[in-house]
Structure formats: C-alpha cells, structure tokens
C-alpha cells in the first residue's frame, strides 16, 4: 500500500497509488495554513503532520482518520472548543484497558497545573455522567463526547476527566488543555474478534502550545521545534507521541542567534542533527537520560528542510552557498564545480532558497534540486547531481508551460517500486518516467527541449589560429528525428555559425568543415517527443594555421 500525503491549499490530501485524491477531514479547530509546508514524521504506524496545521496531527494507517497527534502539544494558542484525546495506542502497561462494549461513567474536576506539569490544586469532581460506547467489530472505533462546564474561577487552568465504570474505583482518565475547553472527545477502538478491548488514554501532562515548525522521528521519539520556542528541542515520551512532558526538552544553543532559528532536521544512519542556516548540531544519546547536543559543524547549515534527502548513509541538503553532504566523511560541499549557481543571482533567485525542494531518483542515482529562476517567484527550474559521477547537470525546465513544480519526493508505485514524484501548481502529480520524451499528459503534451552546450575548445593553445575540419557526431540510432548542431568558431564573442543537422537514423554523421578561428564551441538541440536524444560524442580534426 503506497500513498502520499500532500498539502493542497488549506487542505491535506492523500494521493493513492493510482493518483486518486481524497481530502482528509480535519478535526474541529484545526486549520491548515497556506503559508507553511506540511512537515511529517512517521512513528508507530502513524504519520505525524506539523507546520501547515496549527495543531500537531496524526494520520492513521488507513490514511483517512485524522486526529491530533497529541492532547496538547503543538495545538494552537487559542484553544478549540473540544479536546480530542487519541486512544489509538494499546500498551496495557501504560494505558487503562476495559473490555467489551459498555457504558462508561465519567466525571470531571478543575485543576491548576504549573509549567512543569504538576497539579498544584484541584477541585471536587462534578456529577457523574453516563456514556455508552457502541463499537462495531471488527476493529472499528466509537466516539463519545463528554461535555464539561467551563470554570468561572481563573485559577483553574485545566479540566481533568475521571472514570468510574463497572462499579470500580474512580480512575483518572484525561486532562484537557486550558479553560476554554468545554468537552472531551473520547475514542475507543475495538479489537478484532470476540471480547473487544478498549484502550484508554495515557496519563500525562502537557501544557505547552504553539505551531510545530520542525518534526522528526528518532529512536522511537518524536522531536519537534515550535515557532514560539526556537531555542528548545522538545521530544515526546518514548513511543508515546501523544505525551510531551515539559521536562522533555533540550536547549538549542543557536536557536535565537538569527531571525530564522532552526531550519531542518537531518537524519542519517542512527543519527539525528538539527540545522540552522549556518551551523549544525548533532544529537547524542539514546534516551531522555542522556540526550545532549554537540556541534557538528560551524559556518555550514541548511536553508530548507524540503531540500534534505538521505541517500543510504549520506544526507544531501542545500546550504546558503551550495549543496552539502553529511556522510561518513563528515560535512562537505559537493557543488564547487557549479558554485556560481549558488553564489550569484544570475542563474537562480537566491532569496527563494528557503522555498527550494529536492528529491532523489533511485534508478539514476540523481539528486534533483528544484530552484527558482533568477527574478522568478516560482520553482521553474531544477538541477541534478549525479552521485556516481560526482557531476552536475542542468538547469532543466519543464516542456509544458503549465507545469511548474511545487514539491517533489520519492514515492512508491503500485508495484512497490520507488520513483521520483513531482507535484505542480496545476494541482497534478507527475512521475519522472524514463523512456518518455515529453512532459504532460499522453493526450496533450510537449516534447522536452534538450539543449547541450560545451565549453570552448582551445585546441592546445587558445591564441593560435586554427583550421577546424569536418565535424563527426555520434548518437544513438532512432527511427526518426534530428539533432540541430550550432557551431561557434572564432574568439569568445564570435557569432554562431550556420546550423548542422544530425539525422538520428544514422549513428554517425560527418558534417562540413567548420572553418577558421582560435576557439570552437558546439551546441546541440533537439525537441522531439517520439525519439530519445542520446548524444555519445564527437570528434573533429584541426590544424594550426599555416602548418600541416
């Protein structure tokens, strides 16, 4: 089962492997911002979604049920009218478990809870109320809404829900976020088979609020950085992503030293790092007992979480002045050969680097980085880094004017094969498809314009006039199509010469003599949608003028 989650406008959408879209129903009070990307992390068979939503959300394995990923953490500063408590976890050691379809008896109290999560004062519990869970087996769930009356005394910061089902002792069940909350939505899951079991809610406290900007899963924890608290790395209880104790936080030394704060999580092997724009810190330790941060590198950072791609044991990401990798050899720049792409405004709009995104082609071992054309505010270009050649190619552009990439990620198809997926501003998802020489839809598409320019050939000595002889070009044989070749002979400011044509029905074509000049440059162009353009190479004899 391979699906993808995407933000589309102010909605979250699941895209199935056939490309069908389904909009997720959002819980009450949850709003998806069109200003932020959705950032996700997977833990315990749920996908947690942050940044775009004003509340940390979780999407379950069906891709259809959406609930807040935590009772409090990451919720909006202004509380919604209902607190949803996700009971979808079933660890009996941590959770209150009941059996069978049943009637539950709830009551509630008011509590004053301090910033460390400690209850400093609590009211008497109110009258009991009965609610019946009716669960349809197998494996379905039932909800009941327990309504409470908001307290009038401002000293009460929370409501606490209690249960006295089955005639037993009253048990603490759940805790609301502050005072504005007037109801709890409780969800019980029925197990398959006879004698359904219900999982209760975890006992915990979490009082902090604020939009989660960065999110990552690591060693069975969720780690997060919130907008309101850029100098603190927060994490949930181990394997309990709904519980975020106030004590589970690590100070981020560089969190407030610039206007940006933490910009990305980087994960490789068994390591997690958190990047700013000009520094990277590595998280050491494996539990709350020994988590500490250690500076990994200074002066290098990441500008966009969406450019981070992990390939095997190496992370590749976009920094302020180029593309970097963090692998077994440490952090190093891999874009020195094309440095001007990233240090000058001639090729790309560097002010939009924070909106760049990337994906990885697992078949061709290419890192595709989508950037904004200089002067443009949309990602209309991308460049490609070949991992096995350590070379860069591009910039590429879509053949269809309507296709402007807006996101990219490696996804799985119906055959469980990974592929490069590209989302676009036209609301469509595109697949990078080898062997297809057009962009768009089969019934309406445009041929991909291939344009290759080689650097000037100096012929050993750039200051010696040369006679450039007959050019021979080599290409893959096709049933049709032709490559247009434009030679430029002369000095660096020479005008382009008359074009040549290499018919693709021939593997080798010998062209005319190219003429007299100190330098030679060639440009190859083709844009047929029917035939592949594969240029193997070329050769040309030349003589120094006046010599044979």
């Amino acid at each position: 089962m391979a699906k993808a989650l995407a933000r589309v406008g102010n909605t979250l959408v699941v895209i199935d492997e056939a490309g069908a879209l389904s909009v997720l129903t959002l819980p009450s009070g949850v709003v998806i911002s069109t200003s932020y990307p959705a950032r996700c992390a997977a833990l315990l068979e749920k996908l947690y979604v942050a940044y775009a939503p004003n509340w940390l959300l979780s999407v379950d394995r069906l891709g259809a049920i959406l609930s807040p990923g935590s009772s409090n953490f990451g919720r909006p500063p202004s509380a919604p009218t209902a607190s949803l408590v996700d009971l979808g976890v079933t660890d009996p050691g941590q959770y209150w478990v009941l059996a069978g379809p049943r009637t539950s008896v709830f009551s509630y109290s008011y509590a004053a809870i301090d910033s460390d999560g400690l209850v400093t004062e609590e009211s008497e519990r109110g009258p009991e109320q009965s609610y019946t869970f009716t669960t349809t087996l197998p494996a379905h769930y039932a909800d009941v809404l327990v309504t409470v009356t908001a307290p009038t005394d401002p000293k009460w910061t929370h409501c606490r829900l209690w249960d006295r089902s089955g005639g037993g002792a009253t048990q603490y069940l759940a805790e609301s976020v502050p005072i504005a909350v007037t109801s709890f939505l409780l969800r019980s899951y029925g197990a398959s088979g006879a004698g359904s079991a219900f999982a209760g809610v975890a006992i915990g406290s979490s009082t902090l609020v604020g939009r989660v900007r960065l999110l990552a899963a690591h060693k069975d924890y969720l780690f997060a950085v919130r907008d309101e608290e850029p100098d603190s790395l927060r994490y949930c209880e181990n394997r309990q992503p709904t519980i975020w104790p106030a004590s589970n936080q690590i100070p981020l030394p560089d969190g407030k030293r610039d206007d940006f704060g933490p910009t990305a999580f980087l994960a490789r092997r068994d390591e997690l790092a958190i990047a700013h724009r000009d520094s990277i810190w590595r998280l050491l330790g494996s539990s709350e007992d020994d988590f500490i941060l250690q500076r990994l590198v200074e002066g290098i950072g990441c500008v966009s979480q969406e450019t981070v791609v992990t390939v095997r044991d190496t992370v590749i990401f976009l920094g302020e002045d180029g593309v970097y990798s963090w692998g077994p050899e440490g952090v190093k720049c891999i874009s020195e050969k094309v440095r001007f792409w990233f240090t000058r405004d001639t090729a790309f709009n560097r002010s939009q680097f924070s909106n760049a995104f990337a994906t990885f082609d697992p078949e061709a071992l290419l890192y595709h980085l989508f950037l904004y054309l200089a002067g443009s505010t949309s990602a209309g270009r991308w460049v490609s880094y070949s991992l096995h050649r350590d070379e860069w190619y591009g910039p590429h552009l879509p053949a269809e004017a309507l296709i402007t990439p807006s996101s990219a990620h490696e996804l799985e198809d119906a055959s469980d094969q990974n592929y490069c997926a590209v989302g676009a501003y036209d609301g469509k998802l595109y697949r990078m498809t080898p062997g297809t020489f057009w962009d768009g839809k089969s019934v309406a598409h445009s041929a991909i314009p291939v344009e290759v320019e080689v650097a000037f050939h100096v012929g050993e000595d750039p200051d010696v006039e040369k006679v450039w002889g007959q050019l021979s070009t080599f290409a893959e044989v096709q049933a049709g199509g032709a490559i247009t070749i434009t030679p430029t002979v002369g000095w660096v400011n020479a005008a382009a010469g008359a074009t040549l044509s290499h018919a693709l029905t021939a593997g080798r074509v010998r062209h005319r003599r190219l003429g007299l000049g100190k330098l030679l440059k060639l440009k190859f162009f083709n844009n047929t949608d029917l035939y592949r353009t594969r240029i193997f190479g070329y050769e040309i004899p030349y003589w120094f003028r006046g010599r044979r």
Partner: protein
Amino acid sequence: MKKLAVPNLGAIGVRTTDNPLSQSDGTLTKSQNALPGQVPGDSPGLETRPGLVEVTPTAASGAISSLYPFNFGATSPVPKVPSLLVAVEDASNPWMTSLNGTTWANVPVATIARAQSESKLGTLAGPITCNQGAVWYKGALHYISDGYTLGASAPTVRKWDGSTDTLVFTIPPNPTSGITYPQAVTALCIHAGYLMVAVMESAFDTASPYGRVFCWDGTTLWPFCNRFGLAGTSTVNLGIPFALVSNGCSLFVGMQKWQDEGRVLQSRAAFELGIDSTSFAWLLVAPFASTYNDELVTGVILYKGDLYFTTWVWTSGAGITPKVYCLSLTATGLVTTSLTGPASTTNSYFCPLAVYGGNLYVGAYNQGTGALEIKKFDGATWTTDLTVSAHAALARFGNAVECNSDLYVVVAQNDGAGTAGTICRLHSGAWTYVNDAKNFRGFIAVNPG
C-alpha cells in the same frame, strides 16, 4: 593534423566559471534536460531526461506541496497471488478463473458479465480470434462486453475490479461516417499508460470500411484516430484496425480490408488526438505491395526490438500465402519475410501469441490439412513447438499470457455449440492441456492479485 575527440559527452558535467578558456574538452556549460546515461561506470553519453508524466487523473484544487510518502499501511508485504481469467462463450458462466492453471472454477454472469461474442465480428471473425480483448488495467479487468445488439446499440467495454462489474464506456457514434452504432470493438491494448481501443465501425467486407481508435485514461474516452487515411491522397478508408501493440513510444495498428492489401500503421507521436486523412499523423510502416493482396494483418507483436506481424489469406491464389513478417524498427520500412505458410489455401493464417523465454511464439493454421500448430522462433530458426491435437476444425487461436512463469495459450471456438476449445500450458519446456473441451471465446488475462 591534430584531432579533438570527445567520445563520451556528459562524462564531465556542467562547470560555472569566469574563464571560458580554462575548461577541459567535453566540459559542459549547459545541460538543459540532458542527463548522463544511467549505467554506472558505463559511457552512455547524454540523453533526454525522463519525462514528467501526469499521474493524477483529476487535478487537485491547488498546488500540490509538501509531498510525503505514506507507506506503512501494511506492516508486512502481502504476497500477490496472480490468477488467470478466461472468457467462455456461455451466457450463465461467461468466465473461468484459476490460481494454478490446473484447477478452474466457473465465474457466473452475476459476477462478471459476458465478454463480446465472436458473432459480433461478423465476417471479420473468419477463422481467427487472436485479438486481445481483455487486459488488466488500473487495478481491474477491462474487457470487451457482449452487452449490446448489433445495429441497435453501441459496443461497450466493462471492467471488473475484483468485486464489482461495471460499465466503463460506450463507443460513441462516428461523426465522419454517420455510423450511429459501431459494429464491434476489435482489440484492447495498454499504451503509454492508457487503454487503447480499436473499433470496427462497419463490416470489413464493404467498399468503405470505417474504423477508429480511442484511448481511455480512466475517466475520459478520447478519439485517438477518427479515420485511417493516407496523407495527400484521396484514400481515406484503409480498413479496420484489428490488432494493436505499443512499444511505449508509438502505437502500431494492424489493418484488415477485404479484397485489398493489409497494412501496418505507426503513430508518429505517442498521442495525437483526432487525426484523420486531412491531418494525417500515421506512418505507413508496412505498405503491402500488390503481391500482398489478400494478405490481411492478423496481429502485431514486438520481439527483440523489431515489429513482427502476421497475415491471413482471405482468398486462394498463386503466390498468396500467410506469412510472418519482420519490420525493422531501426531501419525504417525494411520488411522481410520471416516465415511462410502453406500456399493457395484460403483461410490459412498465422497469428502472434507471445514472447516467452526469449522466444517468439505464433499460432499457425493450415486450412488444407486442418493442422493447428504453435511455432517457435528463437531469433534465427522457426520450429513447430506443438501440434494442437484432437480438436475440431472450428478451433482457432485466441490470446496468450504468461502467469506464474508458465505460458498459457487459449485455443478458442466460434460461438456455436461445441467443445473444441482448450488451454495449452507451456511449463518447463513441455506443453499440456490444462482446461480441455470448452467453448472458449479467446480472451485471457492475468489478475495480478
């Protein structure tokens, strides 16, 4: 004389520099939409980047941003178990299914509707039923349905998704010919992610037979070719599209036209909608000369990079024999005869079956002797691999599929009463009959599970 040689363009990627004279030979300054070949360590040059092919049939309401994979729905992969589905000329149980090719179960009409009866093809049916009429496409069996009345309603294609059988589309009237109710769907084929549909509008043994090709993208039926004509000529009716095959780039169409030559056409582009004789976009890749008269194309198939097409002899005559032709796709227009059948025998034919185990398999029928044989071609030599024995003359070849590493060939029968059909299975080099004495329609498909 000196020689400047760049034998492996793309081995050096793009460089950005302020000094145009400092670069090594072969260094790129621009590589727009060109990437190195994808074989590590090889020297395959620069090639066109992969195309951006639309995946979503319906656009979302805004830009798709923040893509994330969502793959943990199944905690452990569920092994896929493919099964066979074969159409039967039976009103009550029009399909049979099998998980192992040995044990077969009836599928009642309430589960999957009846596939198109051979009688719908009229005189085109002749002795052959080898056109592909059932394919697995976008998670469902798509098949030519029998749910229409000749001359009174239009042919339809239905699908079965494993639980529900539904109508997919109905062939619309032809605005060019004025034909309201096309006669039959003749073939289905998947091409560039689309389901291609060949349609015969009128009986093929008329002076002006009409045919069209449509494509189905999962939501919309598009006219791919409104009329088969030749550019710059008055010839606008080249016959009935009878067989389809795709090489991923072009669609090849085998044509039939009574008392005329057969043809094989190739689409110039992967898709050009609505083409006809005035905006002609087909390449006539196998224009039969006069000596090919009365050889009608029964099927087209790709083998080792070339297109093979087979013929059927409609009338007897000197020098007229069914053949297997090879059309070179690297040397355009070069057609050679690969195999020649019996001479001067009406209704003898070859038909393509499958490429399996590196060999090309075709069916061969000799009207004179009644022999029904499966021929095998290894790229150099033709041999007879199986003589389908003990079956009446009404038997004829249907489709072939590979399932669980075995090759299955349906031997069909016309839609009259009879039990001449069988299914031949090739397993580890030996043929057996695994579902004998049935009235098979000829369509067979694999449900991938």
